[in-house]
């Protein structure tokens, strides 16, 4: 049986594993495999390939392992794509958002299994167990959604639903009760209200997109005196010799950016020139740029050479290195500690890690300390926020489109019944977040706001 549409869902629990599996099932699986992994012709079936997933906007989103299955030789019996990406919620969400842009829709609990079943892929003796599984999944999804809707996002969505309901009630009142006891129709009012709603949905969407942690990763600037070991740190975290390392202080001149993944987080790691008073114009310029980078950072890793005296850092920079945003690396623990290595009092209480980037002593914990510092100090994330985001984001974007349709173009007012048709789709889209909004709710609003009836 063909269902016509293509569904998509995360198959692994969010945030619990290093690798995440996203499954896509339906007719779009093949074209998406082609565009995302830049393939010519039909994708090779039933084999694991490695490649960069390219989003519809042309940016590479993640380095993935993927497999394509042609119909009917797949789990669901439809064409399927399985993408193994990094188990980072940010990346997962971006990939899923991209799949939605390409025409997929988020699967309902149990939908993959149901398709598999419909296509005779699952034995009927398994039906009972499968039904239990679907039930459990759906209960969990409902619970998560409810928790989510108690938060700030929920409040915003409920406000939106409320505004759209009012608009719809107003529009419908004049359609269904043209000759009853209504005040004269005000055509401008609803249009203005509609513009307001559109503006607030836009803001909601922009917030979601602009949240740097969601989109570009956490901008992390490595800062310190020359020769402290900053470039060495970048190389270790990147896993390859990205930056030049030498015993010569002032080796790094311009800043270097490298994107890395630590645990669930995507970091945009920036190695900078060591900071000191310099007469060399080129080096001075590099230091200037290092400070600029520091100004726009979400997070700092300060690298200090304990075999040297504590460096002199500008006060403006020290002020930025607050305890929530900073991790201190006390490097070169293989060497003896310099008598004048006295940690600046402003940084004394910050999280620190003592290690040697040269011998590797203490670096086993490096990644986990960075992760926990980010987690506990920087973002206090709620995993559920991220989990629900894709579905919510898709629903809100859909609502946004329909609201814009309702408004019409070029300031020309649409016939009200068409406007109502768009508003209804907008309400349905929001209902994907809040739970289905029944027609009865529109009528309740209508009869609450207007004295209808002879």
């Amino acid at each position, binding site marked *: *049986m063909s*269902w*016509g*549409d293509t569904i998509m869902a995360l198959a692994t629990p969010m945030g619990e594993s290093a690798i995440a599996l996203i499954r896509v099932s339906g007719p779009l699986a093949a074209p998406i495999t082609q565009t995302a992994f830049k393939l010519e012709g039909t994708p090779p079936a039933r084999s694991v390939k490695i490649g960069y997933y390219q989003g519809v906007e042309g940016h590479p989103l993640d380095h993935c392992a993927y497999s394509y299955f042609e119909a009917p030789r797949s789990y669901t019996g439809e064409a399927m794509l399985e993408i193994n990406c990094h188990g980072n919620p940010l990346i997962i969400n971006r990939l899923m958002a991209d799949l939605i842009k390409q025409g997929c829709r988020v699967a*309902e*609990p*149990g*939908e993959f*299994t*149901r398709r598999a*079943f*419909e296509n005779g892929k699952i034995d*009927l003796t398994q*039906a*009972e167990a*499968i*039904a*239990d599984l*679907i*039930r459990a*999944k*759906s*209960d969990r*999804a*409902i619970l998560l959604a409810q928790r989510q809707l108690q938060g700030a996002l929920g409040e915003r969505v409920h406000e939106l639903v409320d505004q759209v309901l009012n608009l719809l009630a107003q529009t*419908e009142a004049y*359609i*269904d*009760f*043209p*000759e*009853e*006891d209504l005040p004269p129709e005000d055509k401008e009012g609803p249009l203005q209200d509609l513009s307001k709603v559109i503006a607030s949905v836009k803001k909601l969407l922009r917030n979601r997109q602009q949240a740097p942690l969601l989109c570009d990763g956490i901008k992390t600037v490595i800062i310190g005196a020359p020769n402290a070991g900053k470039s060495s740190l970048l190389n270790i975290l990147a896993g390859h010799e990205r930056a030049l390392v030498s015993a010569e202080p002032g080796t790094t001149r311009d800043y270097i950016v490298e994107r890395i993944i630590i645990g669930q987080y995507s970091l945009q790691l920036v190695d900078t020139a060591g900071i000191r008073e310099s007469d060399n114009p080129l080096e001075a310029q590099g230091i200037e740029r290092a400070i600029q980078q520091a100004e726009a950072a979400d997070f700092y890793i300060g690298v200090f050479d304990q075999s040297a005296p504590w460096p002199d850092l500008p006060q403006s920079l020290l002020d930025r290195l607050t305890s929530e945003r900073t991790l201190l690396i006390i490097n070169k623990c293989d060497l003896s500690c310099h008598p004048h290595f006295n940690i600046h009092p402003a940084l004394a209480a910050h999280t620190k890690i003592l290690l040697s980037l040269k011998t590797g002593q203490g670096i086993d914990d490096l990644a986990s300390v960075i992760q926990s510092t980010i987690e506990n100090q920087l973002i206090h994330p709620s995993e559920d926020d991220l989990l629900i985001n894709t579905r919510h984001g898709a629903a809100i974007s859909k609502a946004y489109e329909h609201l814009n349709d309702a408004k019409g173009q070029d300031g020309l007012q649409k*016939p*009200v*019944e*068409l406007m*109502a*048709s768009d508003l*209804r789709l907008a309400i349905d889209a929001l209902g994907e977040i809040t739970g*289905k909004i*029944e*027609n*009865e709710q*529109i*009528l309740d609003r*209508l*009869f609450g706001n207007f*004295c*209808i*009836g*002879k």
Partner: protein
Amino acid sequence: MKGILKTGAKAPYDVIVCGAGHAGCEAALAAARMGADVLLLTGNLDTIAQMSCNPAVGGEAKGHMIRELDALGGEMGINADTTAIQFRLLNASKGPAVQSPRAQCDKKAYQYRLKHIIELQANLSLFQGVTTDLIFEKGKAVGVKTHLGVDFYGRALVVTTGTFLKALMHVGDAKSEGGRMGDFSAKTLSDSFKSAGIELGRFKTGTPPRILGGSIDFSKCEEQPGDTKPTFFGFYDTRGDEDLFHVEHFGQSKLGWKPGEARISCWTTHTTPTTAEVVHKNLHRSALYKGDIKGTGPRYCPSIEDKCVKFEKQDTHRVFLEPEGRNTDEWYINGLSTSLPFDTQLEIIQTVPGLEKAHIIRPAYAVEYDFVIPTQLTPTLETKNIENLFFAGQINGTTGYAEAAAQGFIAGVNAVLKIRNETPFIMQRHESYMGVLIDDLVTKGTTEPYRMFTSRAEYRLLLNAGSAEHRLLNHTQRLKIVSNKRISAIEAKVNDTLHWVKFIEKTTHTGGTFANSIRRDPLAINYSFLPIKFNKLSEATRDEILYQVRYKGYLDRDLRQIAKNTNLENIKLPKNFDYYAIRGLRIESQEKLTAIQPLTLAQASRISGVNPADINVLAIFLRAQQK
């Protein structure tokens, strides 16, 4: 009368219809026109097809339904057209989807004509008798008892007794039994239903006072003359003489006027702040506000008490003065429905400009009545528990003449199909308002008297009044209630429409395709660039073609959505399915599904509280059972 009166178990009818209101008349006519042998029982021959509320037919969504009835072979449209005193196309300034015909009718003429049609109908016996009990045998309904002690037997029963079940009228403190002023109350029937296991609810509705036109000062009122060009309910472009309206075509009495002509005006006035004062002062005497009335009333038909209390800030409310007919001076005061005592009614009416000297000839009253909770019915309107027992009309918790007529038609047709063992007649939500009506009632039930609104139809844009014949052609063809000649005419019209829509989309001229030019200037009345042949089509056909072209984007969007849902519509759920045996379903869903017993997965998905995961689980089990 063209049928034979038969009593007793040895001479059963095919279908017995109890009640000759708007539902009962359509049920009996439809069944008889399908060739069944029908008995129509009414408690009072003089109130056949009575408009118990205001003397008007149609309006938003209702007008659409009457068009649909007309397309299928119902009687309401043509009956209203021939007895109307003025017509009005509602929402004329809005798009075609929400334009709807409405007519003020001559109340008595309306009844007389319909009574006469019934008298002339072949296979239909009419008889005056109050139904007191139903006769059941082995869990099936087999007949009715009447107060005369005469029993009638039928293979299927359609009960359309409106608001008459345990009906109680209130005028302030004064209470009297009866479903309508001057009429009786069916007191024993409720118990007969209950003993058969049918669950009843209680609703309330009300009517305003009627006054003498001679006591109205029209100079203080605003005139509503109605449209000069009438918009009829019936489709006359596809009717030949044999399908035409006048009863005199059958060689009987004359109407005396031509439909759409000899208009009579309605008038409007309004309440004043003094009206509200009087209401507030006497609120404690209102049956409604004292708590005497337990039934729920409709929100869209509020009493003047409700209006003044719930919308206190609004200091005037419109009042419509509607003439009840050509041969009477009785006027219906629409907007002043109340359960206040008679002296207060007088005081209230006299605060309204133009009605200072009003002479009330019938007081306003509120009426409470039992209704059958409609989720006990299948989409054919047959009860799930008792085979061959159908319910239709206001007894199912609806209000409105069109709502009643639509149900009557559906129950009548399905009663016949049932006894003939044929596939039931079920319209889907995207096909008609009638389909929406039935699906809402049997799937969701109702918490107040149910009235149709266009906003209840998610595919409203596809359900424009003008396309009723197009939309329902396959059903009209199947039911064959209208003449073969008319079916051919509808087929020709549908083909013309298809042809021209395609032609207009494909053919280009200097400004691109014709379709693009039309969409660019959607308000134009004439498109001179279209071939002369186009302008020779009937106006109704041209309108429909232009509608489909102008609104193409939106109509296509709806059609895509419908196509997506066909999967679910096509998956049938077995009768008496044991939902409790499916462990994966939530208890709430198991309960609801068991109560509603949906026919398809799509219907199941519309039950509130049944979620998509439940539907997935159900689909898997159905599949498992099929293997």
